[in-house]
């Protein structure tokens, strides 16, 4: 069973539907015992970091996530869930979970592509992920695979050690980060067609360990 953590940050039903399509059992929950009894956790999120963190704390889920992370349970962060696992976010200057060292930064207000086109914010649409090193959950992603992104802030881990994939949008930013049993992606695998479904499927069978 997979717990999809519900802390009122966005629409969780799309993640649930994708897992159902893949024939994995899951439940949307904010109850500590339920989360702790599941084999793995998906930590999604849409919205602002400040609000998300205060909701997590109010529900006591920050402690549950830390506990489960330290216990070695496989965790997948999605979108905002890939941001608030860092130490702090520029968005609302929020103190975050700090599971991975680093911060969350805002794309520059005015910035340009290599072709000198003005880039819009948020970064919304399909973009590719360049794998920086192997990870069981990201295995098989081809250079031509693209994923659906919607975000104005991006993860900036303190060390390359945490970076598994990067994406170019004016700058090259970390779009897949992780450490130990935690993997997190800035894009929405549940909205990214077959490439995203494959990633979800690999997470749902991942034991939380790395090959090396």
């Amino acid at each position: 069973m997979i717990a999809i953590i519900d802390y009122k940050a966005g629409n969780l039903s799309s993640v649930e539907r994708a897992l159902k399509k893949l024939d994995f059992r899951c439940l949307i929950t904010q109850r500590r015992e339920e989360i702790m009894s599941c084999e793995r956790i998906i930590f999604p999120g849409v919205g602002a970091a400040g609000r998300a963190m205060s909701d997590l704390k109010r529900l006591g889920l920050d402690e549950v996530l830390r506990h489960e992370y330290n216990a070695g349970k496989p965790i997948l962060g999605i979108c905002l869930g890939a941001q608030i696992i860092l130490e702090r976010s520029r968005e609302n200057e929020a103190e975050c979970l700090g599971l991975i060292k680093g911060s969350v930064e805002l794309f520059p207000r005015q910035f340009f592509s290599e072709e000198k086109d003005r880039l819009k914010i948020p970064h919304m649409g399909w973009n590719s992920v360049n794998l920086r090193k192997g990870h069981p959950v990201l295995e098989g992603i081809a250079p031509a695979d693209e994923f659906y992104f919607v975000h104005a802030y991006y993860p900036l881990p303190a060390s390359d050690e945490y970076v598994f994939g990067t994406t170019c949008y004016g700058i090259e930013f970390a779009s897949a980060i992780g450490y130990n049993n935690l993997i997190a992606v800035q894009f929405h695998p549940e909205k990214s067609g077959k490439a995203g479904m494959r990633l979800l499927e690999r997470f749902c069978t991942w034991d939380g360990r790395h090959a090396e």
Partner: protein
Amino acid sequence: MLSKRIIPCLDVRDGKTTKGVKFQGNIDIGDPVEMARFYYQEGADEIVFYDITASSDHRDIMIDVVRRVAEEIFIPFSVGGGIRTIEDMRRVLLAGAEKVSVNTAAVRNPEIIADGARAFGSQCIVLGMDVKKVEISRKIPSGYEIVIHGGRTYMGIDALEWAKQAENMGAGEICLNSIDADGTLQGYEMNLTSLISENVNIPVIASGGAGNIDHIYDVLTKGKADAALVASIVHDGTYTVKQIKEALHAQGVKVRMRW
């Protein structure tokens, strides 16, 4: 680098598409769920549904369509038409749509943009704009005016000003439809598209006028659009979404080529 998006648009009335799609031996299929699945498998990057159901009694049919589409396709899709309140938005989003689009309701009550963005996030809120070219005047300095009722009613609102206002109020994207170009198959309204796209900082989807692949190429390059809406040319079988993307890719436009 971000890809340009190709977005088929389906008009739905009482749970059926008003124009079927011809494929696989020219069989007409009027089921929006089947059509969405077909375009998803063909490489569409997103799908837009417009509910043109006249009677509000039949709105539940659309919610059921949205729910069934969401079980079948795993790319973003938006729903517009008949969205008048925050509660209308909530129902469509909870049924599984990624975005809702507001058009007439936002012209009449711009606050719905801000309220929607606050409740669900800007990324959910698409402003649909129906626009006609008019004489440049003090009231309409861009020469493009907002219209409703399919172009029959002029609203005295400048299209460029409206786009900027909607962005400030929290719209996350603009779907820009030229009533003049719509249905002509003579190409998108290029001046309008580049004017709006260059003056807002949110993505612009060009709509109305696509008749061939060159039109789509033009609006995504010179027209500065972030995405192109396609209707007739894919529904009537002139091109498949795949053919459009292959041609754009060959001409150097970045589009998603693996699906």
